[in-house]
């Protein structure tokens, strides 16, 4: 077996040195019959060539790649430059572990420091951590962070137009923490957004913060600035979630709107759809949250010769030091994804991000403009979307609609009835820079034919 460098004679000699006859003697503390192979019902070893062929065969059972997809909803199909693919898969980046020994890990550490910096630039916040598991768990961590920081306050407000999976995850995280409570804030079905005046009425004295998403799950930007002001007036924190990080280069930075905690998903920065993972949770906060923040942080320091270098820092927040008192239980995180996102951001650069992000918006805007002439469908929120729009279907059920388009090779979007009773006949349609004008025209034509 090529993964084992020991030879039979090595094994023999080691056994001799250890004074044993059979390797199984090393396992004598373990109950059970050692001559019995408990994994005998697994298949036999597959040689490398068959392994590749086998996976290619399984992969062909996915028919998804044959469709034009307009699915988004927290997972977006963006372009990744080849240099990013090449550089991020270098073994030197892929095969080390957490840089516990910084002197031989400056590559990962510096790259992470750069990632942190770029995330703060994009979000307009003071500090970014070095990654969390994904957008959903980052949202949950954001909520817990607000609660920790707020101390005596025990209630979190949750926007109902936050990504439904994120809500589910927040619920799972909060459920057994009996000291905390959550309350939901409805969105206005007409605008798709949180009505700040309504919010103002709901924010209570024991509110630690309000978590909302912008652009929200219906694709529409929230008024984060107003929201933050309302919260601050009640000494509560504003927690903005972002599932489409590609909106950042085009839209006002959360930091400029006074947001306290920004959490979300940065899969859009160079990570493949990958059937949902691994993705990249991010968190960026105002300075005074640092010591309550979960996740790794890379900081700059000096070596004994005064040379600049990077290390993991503030690890006193972390579980390996603080154990149950840690700010989070996270240990392995999504470091490589963050590294790759950093490479993506550095490669696309300012101009690239601005162009791509604008293209996303304009593609969606083009669609909105073109379908506005149709009577049998209608875009529900025609302004202040980024790259996702809600399309209402008026002349048939949503399953019929998506089913018919699927037959034409189009996956038109996510049926919103999965998540919202009130949006029974609507789909969420996503546009990225990878949709060519022809693709959008094709979708429009196909929808037109359903009249």
């Amino acid at each position: 077996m090529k993964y084992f460098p020991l030879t039979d004679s090595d094994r023999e000699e080691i056994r001799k040195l250890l004074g044993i006859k059979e390797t199984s003697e090393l396992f004598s503390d373990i109950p059970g019959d050692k001559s019995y192979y408990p994994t005998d019902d697994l298949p036999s070893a597959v040689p490398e060539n068959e392994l590749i062929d086998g996976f290619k065969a399984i992969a062909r059972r996915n028919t998804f790649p044959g469709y034009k997809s307009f699915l988004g909803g927290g997972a977006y199909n963006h372009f990744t430059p080849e240099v990013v693919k090449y550089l991020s898969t270098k073994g030197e980046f892929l095969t080390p572990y957490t840089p516990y020994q910084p002197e031989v890990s400056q590559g990962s550490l510096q790259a992470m420091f750069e990632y942190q910096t770029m995330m703060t630039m994009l979000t307009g916040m003071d500090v970014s951590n070095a990654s969390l598991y994904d957008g959903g768990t980052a949202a949950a961590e954001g909520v817990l962070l607000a609660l920790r920081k707020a101390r005596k306050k025990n209630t979190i407000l949750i926007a109902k137009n936050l990504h439904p999976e994120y809500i589910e995850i927040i619920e799972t995280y909060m459920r057994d923490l009996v000291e905390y409570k959550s309350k939901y804030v409805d969105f206005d079905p007409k605008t798709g957004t949180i009505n700040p005046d309504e919010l103002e009425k709901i924010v209570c004295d024991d509110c630690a913060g309000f978590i909302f998403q912008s652009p929200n799950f219906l694709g529409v930007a929230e008024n984060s600035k107003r929201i933050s002001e309302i919260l601050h007036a009640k000494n509560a924190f504003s927690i903005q979630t972002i599932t489409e990080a590609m909106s950042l280069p085009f839209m006002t930075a959360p930091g400029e709107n006074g947001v306290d905690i920004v959490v979300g998903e940065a899969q859009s920065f160079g990570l493949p759809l990958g059937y949902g993972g691994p993705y990249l949770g991010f968190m960026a906060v105002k300075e005074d949250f640092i010591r309550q923040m979960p996740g790794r942080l890379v900081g700059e320091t000096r070596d004994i010769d005064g040379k600049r270098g990077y290390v993991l820092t503030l690890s006193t927040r972390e579980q390996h030091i603080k154990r149950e008192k840690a700010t989070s239980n996270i240990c392995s995180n999504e470091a490589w994804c963050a590294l790759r996102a950093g490479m993506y951001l550095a490669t696309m650069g300012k101009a690239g991000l601005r162009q791509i992000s604008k293209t996303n918006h304009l593609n969606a805007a083009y669609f909105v403009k073109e379908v506005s002439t149709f009577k049998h469908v209608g875009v529900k929120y025609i302004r202040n979307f980024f790259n996702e729009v809600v399309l209402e279907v008026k002349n048939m059920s949503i399953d019929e609609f998506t089913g018919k388009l699927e037959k034409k090779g189009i996956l038109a979007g996510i049926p919103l009835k999965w998540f919202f009773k009130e949006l029974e006949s609507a789909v969420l349609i996503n546009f990225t820079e990878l949709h060519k004008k022809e693709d959008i025209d094709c979708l429009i034509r196909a929808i037109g034919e359903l009249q």
Partner: protein
Amino acid sequence: MNKLPELIFNISKEGKVGYSFSPVPATFTDDMIALDGEYRRNDMEDFPQLSEVEVVRHYTQLAQLNHSVDSGFYPLGSCTMKYNPKVNDTVASLDELSCHPYAPISTVQGNLEIMKTLDEWLCKITGMGGFTLAPAAGAHGEFTGMKIIRKHLSDKGDPRKIVLIPDSAHGTNPASAHFSGYEIKEIPSNPDGILDVETLEKYLTPDVAALMMTNPNTLGIFEKNISKIAEKLHANGSLLYMDGANMNAFMGIVKPGDLGVDVLHLNLHKTFSTPHGGGGPGSGPVGVAAHLVQHLPVPVITKTNDGYHAAYFNKGIGRVKNFYGNFLVMVRALAYIMALGKENIRKVAEDAVLNANYIRKNLEDVLNLQYSSKTLHEVVFSDKGLNVKTLDIAKRLLDFGIHPFTVYFPLIVHGAMMIEPTETESRETLDEFISVMRAILKEAQEDPEKLTSAPHNTPVRRLDEVLAARQLVLRWKKTEEK
């Protein structure tokens, strides 16, 4: 000379471009923008601007500053830094696997098959009744597992309050249990480094929900009372959680499910050889006994005659992770298990344990071994009796191109040096490590300064972690460096 790469922000220059992508269609004019002014961003001040060659050089130079499994020995205890087969990366990068997580189930049958197969095979390896592949890492698995336990107990009307955790546990255990709403009680190990049934009994009050036990524990020792312990726990209405991150030590030898374990997690990025990525992504599947399967988080992959499905259990703990979990990590793990096959799964453990014992045998005359129990996959020495500290030895190892062991963990060993060679190291590599260690220990006596001032040959020398925490520079700022 031997300069470190500049920060990209200092290489950046206005007007440099490192990307190329189709321009916006000419007919898509700015007046189509549907975003009100207040939502539009004006600038991305100071954001990097580099040409392609500069990006390539930057990261190529950074790559060279990293020690990695690909470049050398990495016996970081508790982390199972085994070789990550390249073929796994190849299969994980097949374009056809990279589907959208909300794609209609009928269009992603291949992916569901991969997950279901991995689930089934993990059941076979561990003897558990069912798995969730959702958790993103080991700690996330612990959290998920504890949630399952809590759900199980809550459904019976008594969630209980306390989780017992041995003093040798990984920090994630208490943290995860805490985030599941439990109070933690630490129990001491006995002089053999394992948990006594008698000790356990003392702690086993009616409000104990579970014992979280790493097995083999972080001393590399098998908790041989495990079946007894399980019995006692069950008699008390408590559950046994096994931290299976160290499964490399005995997979294919015995199935934890056969020993009375109720819930366990595995670390795919350790035992199943998916690359650690400088700290992640991982994957921490959780296996549960049959009666707990109903509590698994959503979604659960099922198979019927008409194909694979994603099921949503009502009695489940809900959702712990977006979509299906770290799918591309699962792909790698499955490829790894397939490559091993039934013939080799056990051999992983055998060689891993042979290697750890080889190191133990060859160093136990010069290093203090606090616990004399049988060593499985890793051996933990102490710096007791030495005139230098564990950290100094670790830093000196760097000069020889060897990554140090885990230092100062587990906490119950004074100046712990936790060495886990794994089965993917050759005897030659072990011999070199042993002789370097012996040489360093000799140096420690003859010229301790060599150690305390180490490392000497690394890209940077010993870094000031205290300064980092005090000054807190967590991002580049323009004024600061330019």
